[in-house]
């Protein structure tokens, strides 16, 4: 009898730790309070605090651990033959935090809100090819595109495209009602925002009972808070700071390769950069591995001027060793046997820019490229320097391959920072979008990146590896970028 009892107790205990585990503990993290008083819970506004929206709202499609589309609020999808009409089946029985049920009308509303020019959403550019959003029935929606697009699900993974209740556009900025694993208790961007576990979350109750998202603008203060045990996680620790964490068993560090890139942009529409040989020489002069070591303390993955991240399924494998002799020869061929002089505009907006510029200055000097570093103020950098001066620094956050290539390199792109105009490249991308066969599509995207390596005016030496510091009490945190983390799995001791 006693044996049976203890067996039952054990079974109960086992069940208790797995299936019906009560959410326990509080997980605390910081955000930069980067948008000040304009901080908002509206996922598509410029002031969105994504560290909060990612936990309270869901997307139709989200990235799996390899960055490929996986079901979130949509469970299945399919396209017609030329990929201009997409049908998404929605999850049944999902409730919003206010108790209303989620359905096709909410999706139609949420997506139309992004597409409405009157709303000025920065997310609009990402899905501008969507022409019409319709509800087929309560759990099915149909998207009609203006042109064929084979990877639409990839774009719907965008961290801003979160579903909100129909008609909630005017209040969502403060109510934050969604279908995510956590529910908003109070929103205080400059102080502490509190979330509690959503016990009705469609993938089961989350691991932690509460989350606190705290506004700490100063990076040093955030690190101090982590060291002092006041927050449990800090994303984006520098290589120098990581030493403090790795020497202690109270903390863990995750190294996450990202698609975030930094680089130098040379405008392809002005002399001398309008000569493709000069552009090649400028990029051949760079020793990228040395840049990774010197600028990033080894925390980056070498890139050969492709914006596509190292973990992206469409990333091209290119080899790009430094070649000073070839750079010199190309410059001579282009009519600059004595080398060229460049004014490179650098701000401290991104702390690694000045270091990157100095390392490049040293490396390029060997090829007769004399770089004069011009310090410009951080304020007004994006409006007065970037896309205005001939040679500037740049930085971008991870985007899916198609988005990265389209938003920054296509002739008509709003953010075409190098004024790159190449009909062949545009055609490659347009074809890739329409190609329904994965392997053929992948070949086209790779060809496009190789074309950039031959002709681009942008030097992208590496993709940043993000260091995430956590306190040892945190468990089950997926070692991937923010937009892919499954926050409901996180636990704290």
């Amino acid at each position, binding site marked *: 009898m006693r044996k049976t009892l203890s067996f039952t107790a054990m079974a109960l205990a086992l069940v208790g730790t797995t299936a019906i585990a009560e959410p326990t503990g509080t997980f605390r993290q910081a955000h930069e*309070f980067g*948008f*000040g*008083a*304009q901080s*908002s819970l509206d996922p598509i506004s*410029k*002031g969105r605090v994504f560290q909060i929206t990612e936990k309270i709202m869901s997307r139709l499609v989200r990235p799996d651990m390899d960055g490929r589309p996986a079901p979130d609020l949509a469970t299945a999808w399919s396209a017609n033959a030329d990929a201009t009409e997409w049908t998404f089946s929605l999850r049944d029985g999902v409730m919003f935090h206010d108790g209303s049920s989620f359905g096709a009308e909410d999706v139609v509303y949420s997506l139309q809100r992004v597409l409405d*020019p009157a709303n*000025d959403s*920065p997310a609009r550019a990402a899905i501008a090819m969507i022409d019409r959003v319709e509800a087929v029935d309560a759990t099915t929606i149909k998207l009609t595109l203006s042109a064929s697009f084979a990877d639409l699900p990839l774009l719907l993974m965008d961290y801003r495209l979160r579903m909100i209740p129909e008609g909630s556009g005017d209040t969502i900025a403060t109510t934050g009602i969604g279908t995510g694993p956590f529910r908003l208790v109070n929103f*205080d961007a*400059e*102080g*502490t925002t509190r979330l509690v576990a959503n016990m009705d979350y469609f993938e089961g109750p989350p691991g932690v009972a509460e989350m606190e998202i*705290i506004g*700490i*603008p*100063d990076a*040093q*203060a955030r690190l*101090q*808070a982590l*060291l*002092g*045990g*006041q927050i449990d996680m800090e994303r984006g620790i520098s290589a120098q700071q990581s030493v403090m964490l790795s020497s202690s068993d109270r903390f863990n560090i995750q190294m996450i390769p990202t698609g975030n890139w930094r680089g130098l942009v040379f405008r392809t529409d002005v002399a001398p950069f309008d000569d493709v040989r000069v552009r090649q020489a400028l990029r051949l002069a760079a020793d990228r591995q040395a840049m990774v070591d010197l600028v990033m303390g080894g925390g980056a993955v070498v890139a050969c001027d492709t914006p596509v991240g190292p973990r992206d399924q469409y990333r091209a494998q290119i080899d790009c060793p430094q070649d000073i002799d070839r750079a010199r020869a190309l410059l001579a061929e282009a009519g600059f046997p004595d080398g060229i002089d460049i004014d490179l505009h650098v701000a401290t907006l991104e702390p690694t820019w000045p270091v990157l510029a100095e390392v490049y200055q040293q490396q390029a000097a060997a090829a007769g490229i004399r770089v004069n570093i011009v310090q410009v*103020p951080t*304020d*007004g950098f*994006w*409006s*007065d320097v*970037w896309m205005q001066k001939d040679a500037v620094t740049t930085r971008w956050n991870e985007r899916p391959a198609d988005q990265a290539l389209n938003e920054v390199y296509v002739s008509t792109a*709003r*953010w075409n920072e190098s004024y790159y105009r190449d009909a062949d490249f545009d055609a490659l991308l347009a074809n890739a979008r329409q190609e329904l066969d994965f392997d053929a599509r992948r070949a086209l995207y790779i060809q496009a990146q190789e074309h950039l390596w031959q002709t681009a005016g942008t030097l992208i030496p590496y993709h940043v590896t993000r260091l995430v510091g956590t306190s040892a009490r945190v468990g089950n945190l997926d070692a991937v970028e923010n937009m892919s983390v499954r926050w409901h799995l996180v636990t704290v001791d």
Partner: protein
Amino acid sequence: MLSMLMRRSALGLITVWLVSIIIFIGVEILPGDACTAFLEREAQGLLLENCRRDLGLDRPAWMRYGEWAANALSGNLGVSPDGQRQISELVGYRLRNTLLLASGAILCGIPLALFLGIVAALWRDRPFDIIVSTTAIAAMTIPEFVSATLLILIFSVWLGWVPGIVLTSSNAPLAEFFPEVLLPIAVLTLVMTAHILRTVRSSVIETLASDYAQMALLKGVPYWQMVFRHVLPNALLPTINVVALTIAWLLGGVVVIETVFNYPGLGRMMIDSISDRDLPVTQAIALIIASVYVGVNLLADLLTMVANPRLRTAHLRGK
């Protein structure tokens, strides 16, 4: 005396007005505006136009200043960029928090500085004086962000006695700032004590060496009576201005300390509002800080005058 008070007050008001113009011009000539700061790389085309129209930035600068000044005179400091809250309310909480930090530092720092300074002067060149003076020089020369980081490392990271960073919201009840506010108060106390202490010490030593102090001793006044009745009242007069400046510095928001500790006070709000180009908030804080400086200095001069009869009648004798 009354006319002097009136004259100084009028001058003070003019100073505050000039400050508001200087701040306005200063923020205007910085590259970029509230919209480019917020939109960053999306600051193009329609998005930028709409933003500027919403915030009224499409009008000429003098018109915006005039409108702001007219509103400010009637006590209306404007609303936050999201249009939800009054700036006076937002700034009010920050001012309260800065006052909490400042009064904590003043209550700990001034008595401590007076005590240590006087004792060090009386025991001049003895071990106590040497220790106090050396520590004071160290506290003054080490930048405050370094001492702040050191204190966090010792008391928060290693010992775990107090939280290192302030995580309380700016509008939380004052009680919730404890114990988080203790470390910032400690750092401020350290810095301000050192400054005041050194002034007190040298002033007391100077007075002790004066003819009238020596005279008092020679005519047989007991040492302690001489110290308390003749030396201290005269020695402490010059320190009033140092104390006043220190208080004004504290009330103006101690930017570095507030940033290191993430303390929601006036100083950090000022920095944030400048980087956001949030002119109404910048102006409101500038007004407060300027008024505090003018007010505290006026008060210090009055106190000195009350304590020193010679100054009180100086303008009469001049005639």
